[in-house]
């Protein structure tokens, strides 16, 4: 899904221009009340122009025509902004659709009857159906691998070309329809009906079709509609005031309906109105570009509000893998004996830690890999519950795991836990290392010292987050002492040690009860409850189907640091809306100063003193203001798409700098540009 970084390409531009006209459909226009007002105004002035051709007029025909044309362009510019924002998503959707073609699926009745294959179209697959997917075949729908293991090419959705392993059981069992099996075979149980698959959702999301207005957007729209209503009343009452004042002065009414319509459009918050949906779509699109798929726009906004980040230690704070650096034997056990047991118990351990133990054993004592099948070894895999792994062979039982887990394991078996080991464990933990205790036949042999390496630059990142009021919580399976040491080194605000899924869930609930909004990432099925509870829950794409369904975003890269990017994008989205609203409203001051004095100088010559821009004539003033009003939309499209500049500073600082740029800027800019346009109009003899 990674697209080219080019801001817009030619194809997108052509499509956007075409769409700008398609969007003139009144039904589409009604979705955006502020722009609908401009739309109606454009129709009205066009009507006035047609009437004026038959002599029914209160302003010169050419002037009315000019206003009508500019108003139509204003509508088109707004449509264009939306179309160009959608363009990127549409391009992505096109490539996704290519992946989503109907394929033949080998449906089977049960795992035991893999030979009885019914060939059906992927579009008629139902939830619960079992399909066999062989090398070279496309996976026909979202599902869970229930048998087999295979390498899968998921580049169609992630953009990542390196194949990934998908296998039954564990946390890597989820497969996505539209991806390709490269080697081996798997049996997949379908988990979604046709049309509701992940790919379908993804297409709808990136295209913006499923985009619902978020609460913030609705609240802003209420505000903009209210302003528009006020301005409708302002212009309508101005018409009667003008008649009243002109009658009192005994002159003709100086205002025409055309001018008042122009004034209305100038005053209405058209800048933000025109760009509002583009900002929302662009925010979503930026998230897509970060290879994160949000299941709703609401989730992105919530990301902006998050003030607690629960970050997994591994991969986010520390460089993914802890490395075994020393074997420390206890109670008279030799180092080699310990290394031997450690190596044995780690042979089947595919985790980086496990591998580093094997490597260390090889380096130190030249202990080679053994033939696993020979010795009838029974490997005990690590689970979150036991927090131990190990091996049973030839009557021996070797276990390695966290000190707490091994102690329970030994004491449950009636053994005595080594005192010396306890000291070493504490010593290692104190310096921030991870002690891994190895026991053989319920007796401690010694401790493996695993070292964590803190990622570069994380401290600065967390300090910045803290300045913004975001607390970082490190989640780790380590014991409290180890966790504390790493937490202190990395500069996180708090940590959850010896984390269990239940522990995470209750921590989230506690924070939420105190009024915080919590974001977390997760991948395992046991993360699902916590993911469902968190306000922003990012599921790893490599994770299980349950995790993906519980989360409200999916990170296609499965990168633990993504959470920080997501918060940034969420904040930027809201900031862009707020800043452009401020800009839009601040613009009105100058527009008043352009139009009102120009209109009424005939009635009250003294008002000429308020024509501080020195605009040429009433007509040139109105035209300049309304041309500015249309052009500013185009000028701000890049900003709407890219989002306003985001910095990690406290709220107060952010506010004052944005106010300075968009408030003061919005106040001053139109004075300059309206004057310039007026000078140009006069120079070209257009007014």
């Amino acid at each position: 899904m990674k697209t080219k970084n080019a801001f817009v390409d030619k194809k997108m531009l052509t499509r956007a221009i075409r769409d700008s006209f398609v969007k003139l459909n009144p039904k589409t226009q009604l979705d955006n009340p502020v722009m609908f007002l401009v739309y109606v105004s454009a129709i009205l002035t066009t009507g006035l122009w047609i009437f004026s051709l038959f002599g029914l007029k209160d302003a010169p025909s050419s002037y009315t025509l000019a206003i009508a044309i500019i108003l139509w362009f204003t509508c088109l510019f707004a449509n264009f902004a939306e179309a160009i924002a959608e363009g990127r998503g549409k391009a992505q959707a096109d490539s996704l659709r290519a992946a989503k073609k109907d394929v033949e699926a080998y449906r089977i009745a049960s795992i035991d009857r893999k030979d009885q294959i019914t060939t059906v179209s992927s579009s008629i697959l139902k939830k619960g159906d079992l399909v066999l997917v062989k090398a070279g075949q496309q996976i026909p729908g979202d599902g869970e691998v229930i048998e087999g293991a295979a390498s899968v090419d998921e580049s169609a959705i992630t953009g990542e070309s390196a194949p990934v392993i998908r296998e039954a059981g564990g946390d890597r069992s989820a497969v996505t329809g539209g991806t390709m099996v490269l080697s081996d075979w798997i049996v997949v149980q379908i988990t979604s009906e046709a049309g509701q698959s992940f790919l379908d959702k993804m297409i709808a999301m990136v295209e913006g079709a499923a985009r619902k207005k978020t609460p913030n957007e609705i609240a802003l729209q209420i505000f903009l509609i209210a302003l528009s209503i006020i301005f409708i009343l302002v212009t309508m009452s101005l018409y009667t005031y003008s008649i009243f004042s002109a009658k009192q002065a005994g002159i003709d009414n100086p205002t025409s309906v055309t001018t008042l319509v122009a004034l209305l459009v100038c005053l209405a918050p058209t800048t933000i109105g025109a760009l509002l949906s583009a900002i929302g779509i662009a925010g979503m699109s930026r998230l897509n570009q970060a290879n994160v798929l949000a299941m709703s726009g609401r989730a992105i906004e919530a990301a902006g509000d998050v003030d607690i980040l629960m970050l997994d230690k591994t991969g986010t704070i520390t460089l993914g893998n802890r490395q075994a650096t020393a074997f420390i034997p206890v109670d008279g056990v030799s180092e080699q004996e310990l290394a031997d047991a450690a190596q044995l118990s780690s042979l089947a351990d595919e985790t980086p830690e496990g591998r580093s133990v094997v490597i260390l054993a090889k380096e130190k004592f030249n202990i080679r890999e053994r033939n696993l099948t020979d010795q009838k070894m029974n490997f005990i895999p690590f689970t979150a519950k036991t927090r131990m792994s190990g091996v049973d062979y030839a009557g021996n039982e070797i276990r390695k795991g966290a000190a707490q887990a091994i102690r329970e394991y030994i004491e449950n078996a009636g053994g005595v836990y080594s005192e010396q080991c306890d000291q070493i464990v504490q010593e290692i933990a104190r310096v921030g290392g991870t002690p891994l205790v190895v026991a053989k036949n319920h007796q401690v042999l010694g401790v493996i010292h695993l070292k964590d390496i803190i990622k570069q630059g994380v401290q600065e990142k967390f300090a910045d987050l803290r300045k913004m009021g975001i607390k970082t919580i490190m989640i780790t399976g380590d014991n409290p002492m180890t966790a504390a040491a790493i937490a202190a080194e990395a500069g996180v605000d708090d940590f959850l040690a010896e984390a269990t899924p239940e522990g995470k869930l209750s921590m989230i609930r506690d924070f939420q009860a105190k009024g915080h909004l919590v974001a977390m990432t997760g991948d395992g099925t046991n993360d699902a409850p916590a993911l469902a509870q968190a306000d922003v829950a990012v599921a790893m794409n490599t994770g299980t189907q349950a995790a993906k369904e519980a989360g409200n975003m999916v990170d296609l890269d499965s990168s633990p640091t993504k959470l920080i990017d997501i918060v940034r994008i969420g904040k930027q989205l809201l900031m862009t809306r707020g800043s452009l609203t401020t800009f839009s409203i601040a613009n009105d001051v100058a527009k008043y100063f352009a139009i009102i004095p120009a209109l009424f100088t005939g009635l009250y010559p003294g008002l000429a003193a308020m024509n501080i821009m020195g605009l040429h004539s009433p007509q040139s003033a109105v035209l300049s203001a309304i041309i500015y009003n249309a052009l500013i939309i185009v000028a701000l499209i890049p900003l709407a798409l890219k989002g306003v500049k985001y910095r990690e500073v406290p709220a107060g600082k952010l506010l004052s700098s944005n106010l300075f740029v968009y408030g003061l800027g919005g106040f001053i800019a139109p004075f300059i540009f309206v004057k310039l346009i007026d000078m140009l109009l006069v120079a070209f003899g257009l007014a």
Partner: protein
Amino acid sequence: MFATVMQYVLYLAFLIVLAIPLGAYIKKVMNGEKTFLSKILTPCETAVYKVMGVDSEEQMNWKKYAISVLIFSGIGFVFLFVLQLLQGVLPGNPQHLKGVNWDLALNTAISFITNTNWQAYAGESTLSYLTQAVGLTVQNFLSAATGIAVLFALIRGFIKVKADGLGSFWVDVTRIIIHILLPLNVVVSLLLVGGGVIQNFDGANSVALVEPIAVSQDGEILEDADINVSSNTVKVDGQVIEDAKIVTEQFVPMGPAASQVAIKMTGTNGGGFMGVNSAHPLENPSAFTNLIEMTSILLIPAALCFTFGSALKNKKQGVAIFTAMFICLVVAIACIGVSEQAGTQQLAQNGAVNISLVDQAGGNMEGKEARFGIASSSTWAAYTTAASNGSVNAMHDSFTPLGGMVTMLLMQVGEVIFGGVGCGLYGMLAFAILTVFIAGLMVGRTPEFLGKKIEPYEMKWAVLVCLTTPIVILVGSGIAAMIPEVSESLTNHGAHGFSELLYAFSSCGGNNGSAFAGFNSNTVFLNVSLGLAMLIARFVPIVGTLAIAGNLAKKKKIATTAGTLSTTNGMFIFLLIVVVLIVGALSFFPALALGPLAEFFSNLM
């Protein structure tokens, strides 16, 4: 110059010094806590509950609270309306006044239940004593109490977490009247009586004039007349004026003025005991009474800011809102004061008239009382239009164009610069919600105010609360400008005539009640349209405020972090002022350009 400035400073300092302790006292009353007056007053309160059958522990949800407000005001309206229609056959009518016309009765009834006290009737010659006493005066208390009660409900909305109840309207109204309005008015009345404001039950007096005057048949005073009282002849320039009348006695109204003036000021009502309100020497005889009356206008509205802060256990918040209002007030006073002091070049007549400050008030003294001068008149004008009081001690119609414009603008922003008792602050809090919404978006967070998230529901009602006044004024004045009979109500024409029209609708749309003198508003169209304006401007914001309160009470409180936008610092105060001004300015710039601004610039030419 220095002395003049010090006068303004003194007025403002006096206000702050009194408002702070009163704010703390009101907070106790709101929560039903013990005060130094509880011993005497709480038994009265309990008695009222017993008689009226009020459950003092009731917790109303916002709908029930709102319905109670509407029923309460509705009963007041019907009573007042019928009372006026029937006053001709009711006792307490020694002057034998007829029943009031339906349109005027309607307008007056609305005017008093909405705390506006717009007086379309001609003072003493329209309403009987009974109507004044049991109708208007009672409503002066009740409408003021209603406004404060609604504010209490809103404050509770901010405080409560995941709750439904906002307190009981009946309890709030009873407590406000018994614990706040009655004691305060006793004190203010006594001070006013001490200062020489009349307080008696005598009939009107007649006193002999020091020097008789002569008037022509149509009531015009004959200047430089040579009057011979014994022969009953009047000569002007040696010519005998046949139908001239000699006046030797003056009609002096009497009555319980001080007590009514007290609630007129403290309840931001503003309906004067005398026709010319507090410009009358018996209603406001001296600089001392002027200070008491003027300060009373803003006393409760200012105190409520501190009540708000202390009830929230966030005193800074109260101070921040107060500061925003105070800055606006000071700027308004400065604008009016400077404009009035400078006068206009037309007044100075190229130096032929001395309008300087030396040994005199100087400036534009037209329509102002000599005993008050520029500073007291300007301060009063700002106070009375900042609060939705509407009483006057000088005629705003005669202010300079810019001075008059500021009074109009203060009303047009929705009476939130202190504003009416209770309603000013809840209006301002609605503006605060708009402010945090914009500001919150700009820092990339869902806006929140005092720990409560601001979502579409709050925005919808906050926008309505803030924009009702501008909408009512624009629609009302826009229609009125098209009605030919309205032009005939104007005493001036051109830009100033338009200002009179705009002022009338601004005053009713802001529930203020003051008028640009000379505008005859007692016509069917104006009575009904201004009546509607007052009604909408009062009750739409009340319902909106209660809806917000109800919804906020249901929400949980969000934790404060460094990412939370401070709503107590200078930046927030600045933004709040800007939002209030922008809404006011954007809504009324064209109207003001055709009225006071046109007049101002024409004067310069």
